């Protein structure tokens, strides 16, 4: 055996997978088409955002790398949704793409037990029964054996780029697609579909008229994503805002027939939540303008990213419509926008561990599973890596619950429901989002990382320190009364003198961020920890309600369906239910209940069968 585990692809999923497996002590080979591109940000220069920021923090709590990478490369930091509620706030940072990529590469290269090799995987080596993967075959004919393989090819598997009439076999503009692997998977019986995504033009900074933009500054100070970092010391940068005009829309409408999306050349389905500018113009004809963010690709490049203008129109059309935006009159395009269509593996072919049902030892993560976004990819990457190791260890896989983490929601949605468009995380996908705040990710998941062995001694110590402080703060809020001195500092407390601090903090007029300033005893604690406890207190009533719902939910989740359950022989179920459940092969009754088209009656029957299996005295 050459390696314990082989990871195919060095993107955001591949990095997390390879780092997790090698850190857990399993020799790992990362095969990439180009080591220079490890950790490359193919699309927007930002990490985090609503629900995605939560994912980053969950990855970090599990011992992943993404939080550390963005902490070392951010050039702007913001907390989104400050005004809309603490439970749905999340951090987002603009990244210097080059710095991010270098940090990622350094993390990979610095990792003991992790080798990097430049080649393109085109096929798998299987055991004689064709049921287990035993290694990979590359374009140059090299063969590497391993006990498990993690597939993270992103948009490269038979990737095809479109710009107007131009199309080319590429995963990113200028980088060749990985051909052959998709056909191998199809030959092995996997269902492989096509999805589409797009990216806007990159333009030259010195050709823009910034006086016509609105400037958007970041927050000062920047705060770390990683629970392992205390401060971020990075140079900051603004972003800028401009808008499309009626003229922009007119040009797009006139040329819509030249868009490969509208001419029928692209068959893959694109994301509705992140539409191309041509989609926005055609689908929302009443809108007289659309917002565009002008974002630096980094501090040491002149290229700027036009967020909101993703397009696959021909280059001459792109150039023409770009010039109609205020500030872009003299724009010079460095790279045109383009659409990319790629193979993805229908994710219902995976177990919740991210191992394929068809081929033992083959794990799949990232955009290959039909998702979109760096964070979604990385989240699957670390889980696939952990579970590849656990398989080799003979341990139960790590399956996070929907009530425990956005990662749990993400993977459960993918493997249970599949996806018809590139899947992006949304807070509304989480039934229990009040419990999935970004600031509590360590409390939710670090104990898991400790069990698995991915959390460092240092992380464990920091976590213990935080837990103790949080208990103290909670105790103080419950016992200490609001006094006149506090009300003098913070007038919104005036009506609460005599109330406990906890009670006073629930008043919507009292802002968590100001609260600490009025109470001297709180100033000894880290402000983010104080804020975290204040949110706990404010949401306590809702959390109790949600916890009750989670308890009901968990009962069905905990009812395991044994591997190899004979769905075909489950005669009590309707034929339709039997077919659907056989295809998904759910691991718990809860998961079975979420399979599309499964009715409550089917679940009742399933419950009955399982109860009997467990030792009911069947034949009476």
């Amino acid at each position, binding site marked *: 055996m050459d390696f314990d585990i082989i990871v195919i692809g060095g993107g955001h999923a591949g990095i997390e997978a390879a780092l997790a497996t090698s850190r857990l002590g399993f020799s790992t080979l990362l095969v990439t088409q180009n080591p220079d591109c490890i950790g490359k940000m193919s699309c927007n220069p930002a990490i985090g*955002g*609503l*629900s995605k920021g939560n994912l980053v923090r969950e990855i970090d709590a599990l011992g992943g790398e993404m939080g550390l990478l963005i902490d070392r490369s951010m050039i702007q930091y913001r907390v*989104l*949704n400050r*005004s*809309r*509620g*603490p*439970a*749905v706030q999340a951090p987002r940072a603009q990244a210097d793409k080059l710095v991010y990529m270098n940090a990622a590469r350094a993390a990979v290269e610095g990792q003991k037990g992790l080798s990097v090799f430049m080649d393109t995987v085109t096929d798998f080596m299987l055991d004689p029964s064709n049921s287990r993967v035993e290694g990979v075959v590359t374009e140059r004919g090299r063969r590497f054996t391993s006990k498990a393989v993690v597939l993270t090819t992103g948009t490269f598997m038979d990737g095809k780029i479109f710009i107007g009439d131009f199309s080319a076999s590429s995963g990113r503009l200028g980088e060749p697609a990985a051909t052959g692997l998709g056909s191998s998977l199809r030959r092995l019986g996997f269902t492989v579909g096509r999805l589409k995504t797009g990216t806007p033009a990159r333009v030259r900074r010195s050709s823009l008229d910034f006086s016509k933009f609105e400037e*958007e500054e970041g927050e000062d100070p920047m705060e770390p994503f990683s629970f392992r970092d205390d401060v971020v010391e990075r140079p900051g940068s603004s972003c800028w*805002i401009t808008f499309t005009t009626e003229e922009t829309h007119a040009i797009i409408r006139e040329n819509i027939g030249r868009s490969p999306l509208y001419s029928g050349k692209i068959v893959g389905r694109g*994301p*509705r*939540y992140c*539409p191309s500018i041509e989609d*926005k113009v055609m*689908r*929302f004809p009443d809108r007289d303008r*659309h*917002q565009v*963010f002008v974002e630096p690709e980094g501090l040491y490049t002149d290229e700027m990213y036009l967020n*909101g203008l993703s397009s696959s129109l021909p280059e001459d059309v792109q150039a023409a419509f770009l010039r109609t935006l205020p500030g872009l009159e003299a724009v010079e395009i460095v790279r045109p926008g383009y659409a990319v269509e790629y193979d993805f593996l229908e994710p219902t072919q995976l177990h919740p561990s991210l191992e394929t049902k068809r081929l033992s030892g083959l794990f799949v993560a990232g955009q290959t599973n039909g998702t979109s976004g760096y964070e979604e990819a990385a989240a699957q990457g670390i889980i696939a890596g952990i579970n590849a190791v656990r398989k080799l260890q003979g341990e139960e896989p790590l399956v996070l619950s929907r009530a425990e983490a956005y990662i749990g929601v993400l993977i459960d949605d993918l493997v249970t429901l599949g996806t018809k468009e590139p899947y992006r995380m*949304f*807070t*509304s*996908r989480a*039934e229990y*989002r*009040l419990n999935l705040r970004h600031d509590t990710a360590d409390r939710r998941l670090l104990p898991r990382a400790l069990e698995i062995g991915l959390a460092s001694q240092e992380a464990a110590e920091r976590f213990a320190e935080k837990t103790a402080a949080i208990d103290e703060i909670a105790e103080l809020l419950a016992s200490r009364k609001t006094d006149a001195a506090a009300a003098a500092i913070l007038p919104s407390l005036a009506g609460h003198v005599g109330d406990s601090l906890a009670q006073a903090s629930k008043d919507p*007029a009292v802002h968590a961020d100001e609260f600490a300033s009025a109470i001297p005893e709180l100033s000894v604690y880290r402000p983010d920890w104080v804020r975290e406890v204040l949110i706990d207190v404010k*949401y306590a009533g*809702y959390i109790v309600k949600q916890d009750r719902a989670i308890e*009901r*939910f968990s*009962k*069905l989740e905990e009812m395991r369906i044994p591997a190899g359950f004979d769905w075909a022989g489950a*005669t*009590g*179920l*309707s034929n339709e239910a039997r077919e659907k459940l056989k295809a998904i092969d759910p691991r718990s009754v*809860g998961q079975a*209940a*979420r399979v599309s088209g499964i*009715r*409550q*009656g*089917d679940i*009742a*029957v399933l*419950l*009955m*069968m399982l*109860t*009997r299996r467990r030792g*009911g*005295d069947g*034949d*009476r």
Partner: protein
Amino acid sequence: MPTPTYSLDDAIVALATPLAESALAVIRTSGPGSIELVASAFSRFSALKAASGNTLVHGFILAADGGLIDEVVLGVYRAPHGYTGEDSIEVFCHGSIPGVGRVIERLLEVGFRRAKPGEFTLRAFANGRMDLTRAEAVSEVIAAHTEESRMLALRRLSGALADRVGELKSGILAALAAVEVQLDYAEDDAAEDIELDIAGLGSIERSLRALASTAGRARLFRDGARVAIAGRTNAGKSSLFNLLLREDRSIVSDVHGTTRDYIEEWLDVAGVPVSLFDTAGLREPGDRVEAAGIERSGRVIGSAAVVLYLVDATGGLDDGDRDFLASHCDYTAKTGVAAGPVVIPIWNKVDREVPASPPGFIPVSVKKGEGVDHLLSVLGSVLLEGSAGGSSADGVTVASERQQALLERAADSLASAIASHRAGEPLDLVAPDLRDAVDALGEMTGEVSTADMLEEIFSRFCVGK
């Protein structure tokens, strides 16, 4: 979103016989701890706890304060025997609708949960009390009940009701989408803050409540109505009270609620369980005790659905009578729903030489029992008319208690969302209540999934960088 939750480890209760006036009713319970739970509301609790399986125990269901609710016989089953194969009690009680209601309420109070449709059968299967080959049939039965929302309920919902509920639901769904889009896209992403249409939501809430109130008749037959007899002293109130009870002695229930100020009894009027109150006579109070009694009688009158107001025809209308009648609306003049009780004025003692009854009064001789049949038929139609309730202009009404409960849940959640928003709570706390309102209506017309909601967002808002 709402995942079906079946659990097999708690105690459930449901009425096993149809909800109708009958001599006997059977209430079935099942689940771990059932016997102990029933015992906690039973007069002979140690006898019950000690009872072996497949035996009967006689005694009384007791209220929390120890008062008698009903005399019952309990059928005791111990696992693995009985219909469900779990510890189980079957309560054989009297079949009066309010009485059955009180027994079930009491069992819920001590810790039972209302069983979902088909749940007893499910447990019977789960515990191996039924044959596997019948599973599919049961699946269909359970599905038919729980999927009411999708299929049967759609058939059962009148077209007009489905349309109306659908309309109200889409109004809330639009608000929810507006909230969710702001929770799922950052301030700078979804170009601007979207104001919640609080006035619009308030009007949806009112419509929901109006619609829910049309279920009054279902509730009327379940909960009954309070009817008070009022009038000046010596107008013949107590005689009327006794007469009415004598008229229908056979259905008088065993529930007593006597106070020194007013007397309550049960009687059946046109199938409606009526709680009849005899009140203290209205006159200038002679002492403080009487004054207090009159005040309490006033409250009874205020909370009654109907007041039978007796006037002693031999004395004619005096100022007190005129004041009372003027301050309560006359049922003949009633349009829509009365704010207070509906008053039926009665011209008593027509067996004597008395002036002709004024318009709107029902002439009666309580002493000779004359006119009482007419009075009962007027009372019956007033009760049934009144229960139509709700100002449902287009005649849309709710058919079942379940629908009413869902409409009320939706209205309550909506009210809570509006209140949180007004209090300045952030949107993430407004969202769960809106979501619950949509889910409640979804149970009537078909569930709303996350995918539906995202669809709503993507079709209404141009989002995404």
